[in-house]
């Protein structure tokens, strides 16, 4: 096992980490950057709990080696809210009751953000497709789907205001 230094920008902040070939991006985010909002549900890309946005795309951070991510820009759940308040997607999830146990929530919200960043007014089939890499065992997804629609509406309002 060798050690390598990698550079990551996480939520706009630059980091340098020392990693081995075995470390995953998730390990770095949780253990080295101390950002424990991102969760591990399965460890092999089958549940989406570890979803973060890397270079504008939703990815499963448990199945990306830290070395692969060298030089990337990463957004995690901790990057969404600001001193002025929660992000509209977070607000929508809360208001619509889309959060139960909350373990899938950070991943769901990051998949939602990746979708809405690229497609601000998605259709229902597009929402259903974009969030189908994330398992939720509690909600039956109904309120999650409503939350994504509500978030899109909120973001539209925000962009009209600004």
């Amino acid at each position, binding site marked *: 096992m060798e050690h390598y230094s990698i550079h990551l920008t996480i939520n706009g902040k630059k980091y340098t980490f020392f990693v081995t070939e075995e470390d995953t991006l998730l390990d770095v985010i949780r253990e080295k950057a101390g950002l424990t909002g991102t969760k591990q549900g399965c460890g092999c890309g089958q549940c*989406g709990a570890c979803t973060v946005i890397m270079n504008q795309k939703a990815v499963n951070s448990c199945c990306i*080696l830290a070395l692969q991510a060298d030089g990337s820009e990463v957004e995690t759940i901790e990057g969404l809210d600001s001193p002025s308040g929660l992000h509209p997607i977070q607000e929508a999830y809360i208001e619509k009751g889309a959060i139960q146990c909350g373990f899938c929530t950070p991943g769901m919200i990051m998949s939602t953000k990746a979708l809405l960043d690229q497609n601000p007014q998605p259709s229902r089939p597009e929402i259903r497709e974009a969030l189908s890499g994330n398992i939720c065992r509690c909600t039956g997804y109904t309120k999650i789907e409503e939350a994504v629609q509500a978030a899109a509406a909120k973001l539209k309002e925000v962009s009209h205001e600004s």
Partner: protein
Amino acid sequence: MYKRPKTMEELLQASSLKTETILAGGTDLVPLIKNGVKNCSSLIDITQIPELKKIEKTDKGWFIGTAVTLSSLAENPDIRQAYPALSKAAGKTASPQIRSIGTIGGNILQDRRCMYFNQSAYWRSSLPLCFKTGGSVCHQAPASPVCRAIYYSDTAPALCIYGALAVFYENGCRQTLPVLDFIKHHTAENGTVRYKEILLEGFLLPFQEVPMKSAFEKVSIRNSIDFPVIHFAGTYLPAAKQSCLYAGAVSHYPVRLVKTEEAIASSSFAGLDALTEIAVQEIRSLSQLIKEPGISPKIKRESFKNIRFLFEELFG
């Protein structure tokens, strides 16, 4: 050991592929590393080489670099226009997160899968080693002299119908092969623990005749994450009644449905039901089924009938 060359030259110099593993998206490889069937002691990451990441029009057709991600392939408007079945296949692979980073090269060079192989070292510890893990038996078919694991790549049949060529380096020499032949070489090797020195550069897709229709149809139990129960890809040139049909996830490699193509060419069938029956019989004769988790052999065989949806799209 981890290397991340920035140019083709650097890659070709750096790589002694006998001992090193090529890493692109890692969505197939990393879970195998975690399951203890692959190791990460020596990795060459090819995702920073510009040539391998491009989609470009050449005078011989469209070139798709091996490290192009499935999502950028699915979203590319030129590919969607020229090769809609490939675009759809890329967009139907795995989940959005996996498509974001998984590559077309990795999708084609993915390991064949089997419920005895895609398990943790702990799970497998109560059984003897199989062909794919260095042993001399196939748990699916103990009488079989070779591994019977299935090849599930969704993009493979779509590349096949367009007559794509694989462009690759073997022992340092740049070569091309029809993609099906390339896949057959890969999957034969992939039933063992030997590995050839192959470096895939990308795929060259010949220009298609304008009125040609093409389609891809994936049948899976869930709309995402799942590997296919079965998938089909086809092209159809109405004027010439000329077609090219493939079915996948039924054997070591995608199977071409030549008899069904002939039936279409000679119009020797009465209606869609009859054509479907011809295709089902042909897939049956070409398939080498194994037990897959959560899918009974009966349901798998019945799934062949879904080729009618491909026909509906091609002829509709």
